[in-house]
């Protein structure tokens, strides 16, 4: 495949309720990402974004956000109704054609415009699942229960994940939720939806993120230490919860293999696990060695902007390569109830 790298990443601070509209959020991150790469807007070869109309409560919400890109003269552009990580995948595919050298990827989401618990119910099978009103926290609790029943993990393991992520988020200025309470103290809290406590669940976040991709020599010209994409792949599982083993993530396992995740050790992994038990499932699926630093950003437990959080994981992983902390990093994104769909992107520094 043609070598393509992440050369720049920008994100907004993530907050419970932004006062900015979609175009303003996107404007902030697109401008920052392009400035960081010193890439003028008119030199962007391809543009792809990820968002959901259901968050905005309006059709074509991505159309308005296009104003932030400056699509004049007209641009080559596409949009996925998916997390921005899949927009990055589409852009990576497009750069493989060889006729374009750069791509801008962005994602935005404002969960504050509606009741996110109610909105995400509409993401379920409309015939068999949505009428039950199963909200994301309830579904994640079922998954957590299955994990406990498996006997390999305890509620303390969940609390450890939460404590570690909130502690790491203290050094992430974009994070929405930070904390210093140890796992033992967290376990004294009441259940939100047993066996999940509040700390096991993500915050509700507004925000946006943007990434610049570049191919070959162009990447080296735009970035001193580009985060080269060593592999990227995504897989989907059945939607019906009863058709899956909720304690495993075979789609993550497969995507990791296809993305060459196991070729060499991963120094840093950014996992998109909105609920703490999901990080345990993902760690197992990815078979990460003990030396891998997981979620230095605090992960989705520190900020979980729907449609954006996956792209942020890829951006954070790339940033660790770009800033020299990691030689090889892994970014993961998920979509759908209980980790239904998963994407793995392996990034590395190259001499």
């Amino acid at each position, binding site marked *: *495949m043609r070598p393509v790298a992440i050369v720049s990443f920008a994100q907004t601070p993530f907050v419970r309720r932004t006062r900015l509209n979609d175009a303003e959020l996107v404007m902030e991150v697109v401008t920052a990402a392009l400035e960081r790469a010193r890439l003028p807007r008119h030199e962007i070869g391809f543009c792809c974004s990820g968002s959901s109309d259901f968050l905005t409560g309006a059709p074509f919400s991505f159309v308005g956000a296009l104003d932030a890109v400056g*699509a004049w003269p007209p641009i080559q552009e596409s949009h996925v109704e*998916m997390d921005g990580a899949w927009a990055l995948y589409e852009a990576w595919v497009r750069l493989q054609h060889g006729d374009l050298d750069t791509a801008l990827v962005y994602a935005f989401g404002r969960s504050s415009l509606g009741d996110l618990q109610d909105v995400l119910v509409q993401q379920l*099978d409309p015939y068999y699942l949505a009428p039950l009103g199963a909200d994301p926290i309830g579904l994640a609790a079922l998954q957590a229960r299955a994990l406990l029943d498996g006997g390999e993990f305890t509620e303390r393991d969940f609390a450890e994940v939460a404590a570690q992520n909130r502690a790491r988020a203290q050094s992430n200025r974009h994070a929405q939720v930070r904390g210093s309470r140890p796992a033992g103290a967290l376990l004294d809290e009441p259940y939100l939806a047993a066996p999940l406590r509040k700390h096991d669940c993500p915050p509700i976040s507004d925000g946006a993120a943007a990434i610049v991709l570049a191919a070959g020599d162009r990447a080296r010209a735009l970035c001193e230490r580009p985060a080269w994409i060593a592999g990227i792949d995504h897989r989907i*599982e059945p939607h*019906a919860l009863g058709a899956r083993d909720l304690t495993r993530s075979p789609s993550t396992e497969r995507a990791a293999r296809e993305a060459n995740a196991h070729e060499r050790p991963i120094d840093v992994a950014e996992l998109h696990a909105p609920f703490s038990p999901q990080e345990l499932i993902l760690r197992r699926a990815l078979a990460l060695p003990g030396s891998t630093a997981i979620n230095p950003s605090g992960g989705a437990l520190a900020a979980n902007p729907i449609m954006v959080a996956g792209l942020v994981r890829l951006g954070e992983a790339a940033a660790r390569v770009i800033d020299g902390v990691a030689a090889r990093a892994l970014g993961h994104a998920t979509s759908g109830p209980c980790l*239904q*769909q998963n994407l793995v992107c392996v990034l590395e520094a190259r001499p």
Partner: protein
Amino acid sequence: MNRAAVIGVGQTRHAQKRTDVSIPGLLREAALRALEDAELTFRDLDAVVIGKAPDMFEGVMMPELFLAEALGAVGKPMMRVHTAGSVGGSTGLVAAHLVQAGVHRRVLAVAFEKQSESEAMWALSPKLPFQPPLVAGAGGYFAPIIRAYLKRSGAPDEVGMMVAVKDRKNALKNPYAHLQLPDISLDTVRASPMLWDPIRYLETCPSSDGACAVVIGDEAGARRAPRKPAWIWGGAMRSEPTMFAGRNLVDPRAGRDCAKDLYSQAGITDPRREIDVAELYVPFSWFEPMWLENLGFAERDQGWRLTADGVTALDGDLPVNPSGGVLSSNPIGASGLLRFAEAALQVRGLAGEHQVDGARVAMGHAYGGGSQYYAMWIVGSELR
């Protein structure tokens, strides 16, 4: 860039309400027909790309998630494209890109809309803060643009009605088409109620339930395909902002740029002579002459003459929408892919009663948003 071709095409019977099938059932009807055409099964596919217009049309957020099983996508990559009305075309292009990039060898593109699950007029007319509510759906948005074209070009009133009649007559030859109006004539169109001046009821597209699927294969797969492949000669997408001072809504630059890019990829210098048949996204009759100009088939303000002279009729020199087009079937998210698929059927010689004799080069075209999103491809009967 690797070569790619359409090796399977399928579509549903389009209708106002397909109450006989669920959403997965609707998609499977199209997908299984495309697989049957290619003599493949879901097992043979590397990836699935789904496209549809706003999720509010069915009231399901990101419906591709619950469609994974029905489309045999479990364990595979699945993507969901949404680029407004052009989405069907974009879905075909994203699927083609995967093959052209060498990532996959066989990809299924499926696009759909089950409009009867909701109310498109409502879904298209939300009241947003700080924006004037239009509450008029797509017709209300596009009518002033058509009026501007009429004023500018001096086209006679009848041309819009001619398009409405022509496309519905073509639809009579297409067993999948939603509208079957054997008695349509200039008189019935003229007598139909004026909805958004100058768009009459019979000059507008229906609301349809329907789906379309295409299987895209790599060169080796296309050569092994049981039926003639439609080779993809080029594909292009362009977008421009909805509103800005001086924007030409009648003849948008994004459409012109997209066509220019497309023709350059396909090695076409004179589209009027070199393209044998075109499936253009014409949801309101007057968009046929407007797109003929935008796409370079006619000079500015002269597109209507092609329609008036019968050039775009099924037996004309440049048949436009032999399938009956969007005016006869409009499952919105699928409408673009239907244009792409019908173009492929033409060059494969598999368009049945609405086959254009000797079609070798065909164009599929889709647009969306406020005439601001474009997706197009050109397919040929031979490898270019």
